[in-house]
């Protein structure tokens, strides 16, 4: 009887020790999970402080609505985001112009026409394009695509036009970025097209429509919100991309419609304002934080919209 009591008390002792240990472990797990929030707060705060600092020494209306970007380290700089935003959006548009048709057609073929063997080889190979580091694309733009385009469109080039003066241009960066984005569009669209219920296809085919008619008039309209979400995600990727534009787009801030001209983007200016000896009291350095937070808000907004669209679409068919 005493033995039974003894083991019982020993066991309850063990159990309480175990419980205390588990409480500690649980605390550790919770704190690990909250690190994700801490990082986000860190990102926002680290940029917000310096941005506030920046707007104290530089007029915010000039930053958001001015039209010239000409930093001058002796002071008296004009630091407006608009020319940079224009370059960013223009290059992203060129990239999407390349990636969306190729990616979408590839996704349609993979989802609707390709046999299992073709699918099993082509899909991972296309996804390789997304796994290649951006520095590789940057070097490709700088050394291969840029000079190649000059040979085509430059002075004394194949087409006999002299549209391109230097190898850095909107087209150079846009084309290369487009290659990088193909798998972003194709993979997500492929998943989304696959999620369209088979009954829709069967109904259309049963009424005598051909496969291409079914795809164009039934499957794609049904998948449209998801595809739009995929394109938005690709756009957000394009806007935040750094290495390709640093190496391929140039450093001239201007608002122009000519894709053969060099333009610059938000990300390249962040890099150029923050590398080298930077003085963290001058507006020329601090502007990088204002640019950074603008970029963060822009890409975050696109992502939230894109994810909401994709999620809504998924619920529709579940």
């Amino acid at each position, binding site marked *: 009887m005493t033995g039974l009591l003894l083991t019982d008390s020993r066991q309850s002792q063990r159990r309480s020790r175990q419980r205390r240990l588990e409480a500690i472990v649980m605390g550790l797990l919770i704190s*690990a999970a909250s690190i*994700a929030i801490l990082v986000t707060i860190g990102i926002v705060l*680290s940029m917000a402080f310096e941005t506030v600092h920046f707007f104290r020494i530089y007029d915010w209306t000039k930053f958001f609505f001015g039209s010239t970007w000409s930093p001058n380290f002796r002071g008296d700089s004009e630091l407006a985001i608009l020319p940079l935003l224009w370059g960013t959006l223009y290059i992203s548009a060129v990239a999407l112009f390349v990636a969306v048709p190729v990616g979408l057609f590839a996704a349609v073929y993979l989802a609707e026409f390709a046999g299992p063997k073709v699918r099993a080889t082509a899909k991972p190979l296309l996804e390789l394009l997304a796994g290649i580091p951006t*520095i590789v694309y940057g070097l490709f733009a700088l050394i291969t695509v840029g000079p190649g385009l000059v040979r085509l469109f430059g002075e004394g080039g194949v087409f006999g036009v002299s549209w391109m003066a230097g190898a850095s241009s909107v087209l150079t960066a846009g084309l290369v970025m487009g290659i990088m984005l193909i798998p972003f569009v194709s993979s997500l669209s492929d998943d989304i097209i696959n999620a369209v219920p088979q009954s829709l296809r069967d109904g259309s085919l049963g009424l005598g429509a051909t496969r291409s008619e079914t795809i164009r008039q039934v499957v794609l309209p049904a998948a449209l919100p998801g595809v739009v979400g995929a394109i938005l995600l690709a756009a957000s*990727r394009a806007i*935040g991309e750094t290495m390709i534009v640093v190496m391929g787009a140039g450093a001239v801030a201007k608002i122009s419609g000519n894709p053969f001209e060099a333009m610059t983007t938000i990300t390249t200016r962040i*890099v150029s304002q923050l590398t080298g000896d930077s003085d963290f009291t001058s507006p020329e350095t601090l502007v990088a934080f204002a640019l950074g937070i603008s970029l963060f808000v822009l890409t975050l907004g696109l*992502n939230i919209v894109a994810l909401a669209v994709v999620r809504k679409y998924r619920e529709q068919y579940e």
Partner: protein
Amino acid sequence: MTLRSKSLFAADPHIQSRKRADARFKLYGLAAILAGLALLAVLLGTVIGNGLGAFQQSYLTLEVELLESKLDKNGNRDIEEIKKVTTFGYDPLLTAAAERLIETQNIQTDLRAKDIAKLLSKSAVSDLRDFVVADTSRIGRTVSFDFLVNARVDGYLKGRVTRESIADDKMISAEQLDAVDQLVAAGALVKRFNLDFILGSDASDQRPEAAGIGTAMLGSLAMMLVVLVLTLPVGVSASIYLEEFAPKNRLTDLIEVNISNLAAVPSIVFGILGLAVFINILHLPMSAPLVGGLVLSLMTLPTIIISSRAAMKSVPPSIRDAALGVGASRMQAVFHHVLPLAAPGILTGTIIGLAQALGETAPLLLIGMVGFIASTTPETMGDALLAPNSALPAQIFEWAKRADPAFYERAWGGIIVLLVFLVAMNAVAILLRRRFERRW
């Protein structure tokens, strides 16, 4: 009602045109896939075509007489005195060796021996000096030494430099190239595998032929260690909590939304964070792999959390129920049963996350890992983490920025090294998945 077709078996024009449209549509899809694959092939072809040259280097073999009168005037082999002889002291030895080479190989040239010695790399003299300082008993003897030739001569052997391209080049003349042709024919100047590119350190922008990627590789290795040590425990703990214990409430919703958004934040923003927090507030040293590793850890964390959660989700609930049924606590069920079963999936996700981090460049620009010459190999672990260093992608970017086109070849070669690492890591991940993944 008009009959559009006379026969049931022959398609009428309308059907025919619809069928043609169908075939065309399918063709567009196929063309898109082929275009994507062709672009991939072009990209890889460019990398390999341009980069393989970096793994070969040209060397000129010279018989150098290590004159005691020049290197050790007092003849007492005192290492301190020998070290005092600067590289200028070694120049005459090279010129004399070049003269001997012209005579013995019977090279027909109007050039003086000095101009032949100029075919050598700018690092040739210091290489010779290091060779002598390493073993002073070599003084007084005649040794056969393989010298690096300069980037122009090396480029000529690789076909990058031609007689047309050097018309305005002050570094090399057509007569020198004539001499090079004869030296190649005589077998004194050869191109061979260049281990120094893989193991060596970066060189100043005057000496592309001596630049190697080894030190940058160590920088990347140190960063990957930091990333692994930080993200694996934190990432796995976070996913255990979110997947197994988290109650469904506002806070956990917020964490989840946060994680998926963090995965999509542009990498340059993490660079800004690193600069503001780790360097400006915590005063960690610029260009240190530790800082690079910290920044990359923040970027890799979401990837690891997402893949670890997927791995834990795929462990069926029956396993947990069985463990709980025999009296295990929830914590024991997770740590003793779910986690070991999810381990291969977690590991696969970790390797893929590390591979992503390895190729990331943009945040490294902001914390100063580009723009200086990573020429000293770190000796200790502390040095490897805290001394300024470069990293694989940062070194590639650095080379791409330099003026001499000989560095482009190095940059492409660096990319081959980077891609080999990425392919190897992904292959390990795929192998792990194939071998250990269980389908329930």
